[in-house]
């Protein structure tokens, strides 16, 4: 029994090491580390996401002739899919921005513990918000209210702000 447990632990550690070394050998995608991406990136692209479950849309729909509750249910279901799509894009953009920020931190000429701490904190905050939004999306058909997506954008704005403050220091190092 203990022999089997040891074998399982060794197999698990082997898998973890393989995954880590694969990630280590391909941890940066040079093609994605561009200033053009950063120039074009804006959280305003995600503004429509905030209005997906705006009560006014549903009130307007209810006031139209021939309205049936199934139509509102259908619209909610479609918008849940749209939000899930936005979420995927947002996660990709967040990871990209976070990678750039970590790169700046490592290449910095002087120590910036505040920046490092903020990066770690914002990463936790962002993924917590992602989990909360996903949970709400799953529970919405059961009557739960729509998720608050503004919490998803706050960590991104915060990282961008920190990066702007950090830029002069990092520019000296680079």
């Amino acid at each position, binding site marked *: 029994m203990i022999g089997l447990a040891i074998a399982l632990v060794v197999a698990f550690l082997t898998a973890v090491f393989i995954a880590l070394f694969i990630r*280590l050998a*391909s941890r940066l995608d040079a093609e994605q580390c561009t200033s053009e991406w950063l120039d074009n990136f804006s959280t305003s692209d995600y503004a429509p996401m905030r209005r997906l479950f705006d009560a006014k849309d549903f009130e307007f729909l209810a006031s139209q002739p021939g309205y049936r509750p199934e139509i509102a249910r259908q619209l909610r279901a479609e918008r849940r899919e749209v939000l899930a799509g936005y979420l995927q894009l947002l996660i990709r953009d967040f990871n990209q921005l976070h990678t750039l920020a970590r790169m700046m931190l490592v290449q910095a000429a002087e120590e910036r513990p505040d920046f490092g701490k903020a990066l770690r904190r914002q990463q936790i905050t962002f993924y917590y918000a992602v989990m909360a939004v996903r949970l709400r999306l799953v529970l919405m058909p059961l009557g739960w209210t729509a998720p608050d997506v503004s919490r998803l954008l706050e960590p991104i704005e915060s990282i961008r702000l920190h990066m702007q403050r950090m830029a002069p220091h990092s520019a000296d190092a680079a």
Partner: protein
Amino acid sequence: MHRSPTVETVLLLLQSAILVRLVIRVLVTKLFRKYPCFFGYLLVACAQALVFLLVPYDSASYRDWWLITQALLTCFCALIVLELYGLILSDLTGIASFSRLYLKISIGVAILVSLLLLLVEKTPHDRYSGFMVVDRAIVTSLLVFVLLLTAFLVYYPIPINRNLVVYSIGYAVYFLAKAGFLLAVNVSNTGYRLFGIAVITASTVCMLFWLVGLSSRGEEKTLVIGHRWNREDQDKVLERLKAINASLLRAGRQ
């Protein structure tokens, strides 16, 4: 003279041949200057292989020599790991405090995990089994330490050279095999011969891997990007970092 069993003899001869070539490679490429502990480890491993080939397998002096050389090798393993991560984390100005803190936490976690495993091991009945318990504790703590430090390197895009990645993979394989088999032996108090064969095989595979992977060109310090290691890629990324900084400064002024 009593010879060691055939399997062990073949493995030892194979390991000795690889070891000699690896020592020559480290000498020729002058890597011994940068990695003195690793070079020391190779020399002790050479001495151990020589002793095992010369001393009768079932004699008391064979076991004594095994104990001495194995203790030395374990000490060198600890020194190698410290040497390796000292080199990686030496000039990280931007995250100096955090890397120091992470290092301390990693050492603490590694020691704790290795000591917790003592709970499942049987009480040593002689000095050899006692040594194996201590050896297992050290090797396990080194294994956990390497695991945590690799995770740190995955998270932060720290410039590392190809040789350091090759070293790390080799140590991970060796420590994993050795810790696993040592724990199995210490828990069951049987399978000593199988353990010996497993450790010799693991160390032979690692040495072969280092022989193939280590080179003087692998010392060029660069960011690791998409499975390639070269100066051009690092320059490209640094150029982009400058452009990103300029972009951020522009955005900040708006």
